[in-house]
């Protein structure tokens, strides 16, 4: 096992799958000679040629529509959206078309495609380079949504996503790209889409999160451990389909639930997790469900002070958990 960064894990997954299956190809802005603005596809154009690593014109709707059309013909495209903030021009193809293709053809036309998007804030990206877009895809039946937070998960899940016969929105938190490092097996492996992962066992309360904030939850959990509160940290990893069984099991065990995410609180993924518990684990709940999430302002502003004020940090999370434990 070698220690790798998230971006390295992503790159390896793409490379290995392109090698394994000639139907896999990459399309996006600056993915070729530039290797993508985050270098996720660095070296791939050299290795696989410009026919399999296609530098598209600056037009997201066409990138998505062309990838989708190629999937109809049995290819396995990996369109890259340069920043998730720029996905909007393309969502008619994604939410309107790709998500409903299998259903709208009664299963005749599967859509094996992975839409990769760097997302999230904390990198001084301001209003248009920090966006959390997961909820829109989470709320779209027909899409799968994956949001890993470690190199190990990123690689295993991306490989599974590429082999999946459905449109998978694959969300890579930009701040984790180089910041988060971890062991990645040398040998081939995949991880199942739709399975949450207990990143920390605990008995007093359950925190559900994903992406960058998962790491902050782990830090907060350590803080609380020092105070004698044993926190279970559950990493959703896949948002859709949601692993309801694992969530409910943990909540039933601890009786206390907090949901943490960077995305705006109202109507976010956390609302669904809370609703799930309030509907199906009601008898087990010993306290109100807490949500420690991004406030309802349009994502993270540019100034450091404002970005910090937006972000659910480990301190803010610890404070929320403390209150929940004390209820």
């Amino acid at each position: 096992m070698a220690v790798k960064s998230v971006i390295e894990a992503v790159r390896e997954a793409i490379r290995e799958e392109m090698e394994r299956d000639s139907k896999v190809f990459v399309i996006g802005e600056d993915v070729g000679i530039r290797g993508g603005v985050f270098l996720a596809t660095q070296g791939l154009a050299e290795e696989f040629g410009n026919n399999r690593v296609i530098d598209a014109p600056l037009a997201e709707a066409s990138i998505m529509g062309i990838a989708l059309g190629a999937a109809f013909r049995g290819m396995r495209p990996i369109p890259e959206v340069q920043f998730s903030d720029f996905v909007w021009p393309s969502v008619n193809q994604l939410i309107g078309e790709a998500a409903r293709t299998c259903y709208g053809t009664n299963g005749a036309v599967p859509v094996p495609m992975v839409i990769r998007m760097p997302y999230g804030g904390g990198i001084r990206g301001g209003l248009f380079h920090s966006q959390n877009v997961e909820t829109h895809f989470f709320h779209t039946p027909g899409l799968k949504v994956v949001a890993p937070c470690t190199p190990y998960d990123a690689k295993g899940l991306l490989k599974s996503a590429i082999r999946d016969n459905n449109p998978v929105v694959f969300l890579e938190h930009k701040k984790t790209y180089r910041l988060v490092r971890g062991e990645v097996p040398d040998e081939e492996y995949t991880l199942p889409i739709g399975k949450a992962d207990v990143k920390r066992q605990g008995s007093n309360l359950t925190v559900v999160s994903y992406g960058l904030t998962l790491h902050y939850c782990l830090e907060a959990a350590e803080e609380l451990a020092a105070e004698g509160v044993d926190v279970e940290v559950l990493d959703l990893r896949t948002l859709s389909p949601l692993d309801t069984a694992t969530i409910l099991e943990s909540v039933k065990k601890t009786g206390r639930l907090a949901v943490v995410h960077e995305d705006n609180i109202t109507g976010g993924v956390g609302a669904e997790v809370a609703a799930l518990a309030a509907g199906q684990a009601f008898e087990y709940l010993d306290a109100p469900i807490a949500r420690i999430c991004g406030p309802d302002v349009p994502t993270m502003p540019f100034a450091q002070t404002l970005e910090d004020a937006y972000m659910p940090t480990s301190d803010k999370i610890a404070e929320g958990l403390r209150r929940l434990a004390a209820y």
Partner: protein
Amino acid sequence: MPRKPTTRTRANSSNGANSQAKLPKGLKASDLVDYYTRLVQARSLDERIWMLNRLGKVPIAASSQGHEAAQLGSLLAAEKDGDCFLFPYYRDLALKVAAGLSPVQVMMSFMGKAGDPYSHGRQFPLQGADLPHKIIQISNVVAAGLTQSVGYALACRMAGDETVVLVYFGDGATSQGETHEAMNFASIHKLPVIFICENNRYAISTPQSAQMVVEEVASRAASYGFPGFTVDGMDLIQCYEATREAITHARAQGPVLLEMMVKRFMSHTTDDDDRRYRPEGEVERARERDPVITFARTLIEEGMLTQKMVDEIAAETLRSTDEATDVADVSSPPDASNLHDSVYSP
């Protein structure tokens, strides 16, 4: 590929008879008779469907009446070529029927029955996919199929196919940004795509003059450095020939834009009433060049059909339509449990 394409308008036969004196290249007389029969069958179904809407048996329909020569002429070219894939749009009823569906299948689709070959009753009629006949139309969202068709062509090239893709859309669809994006990408990669604009000069109630300043959609091909032509979409043989040429060009050199000038005989859909916005007499005048009539006339003039045969075809297709209506009417709708199937592919 010419870098400075010119827009060529093909001769417009104003009397409605086709200008071809001999058999078009690559066709036998039987092909034309066959296509005439398909045309009449499509028209018969189309008329019946409209009537069934008024009877409450078909919730919605978009008619292809007046567009049939464009649809069937291009289809004939695709069929003769033998390696084409089609991305039609919601007005391509005649195209989809003529591509090989049985009248019963068509009626099942319009009535939302389980026998609907496109979507098993999930979608609007004849929308979804008919893979046996090499047709995909995921939605009726205007212009959404264009980039998809370009991606399909890209994939064919990657897979080593020689397939040419024909994608259909109306004049209204040219306003959508994705139309620009699709043509631009196809031109950069010289992909074998034929963009077929069935220009009836209306997007529902909006006349062409409120949609664009240019006279000819085909002229926009210049923005992408590929050829664009405007042809008489009421003339099946002209549409066949133009498409046949375009297929050859597309396979060798990349995209072509074919604008086929057609007339919408009916309201936009069964939900619309075009008397609100259409000048009086416009439809009547347009019907003087009804392809069902003019094509028959040509075939009779050329000695490929007799009036008697024409009458027999009319009777036979009507019988099929009647029968199909009855069969579909009593057939089962999809089972409610189907609601939850195929949200995801295994």
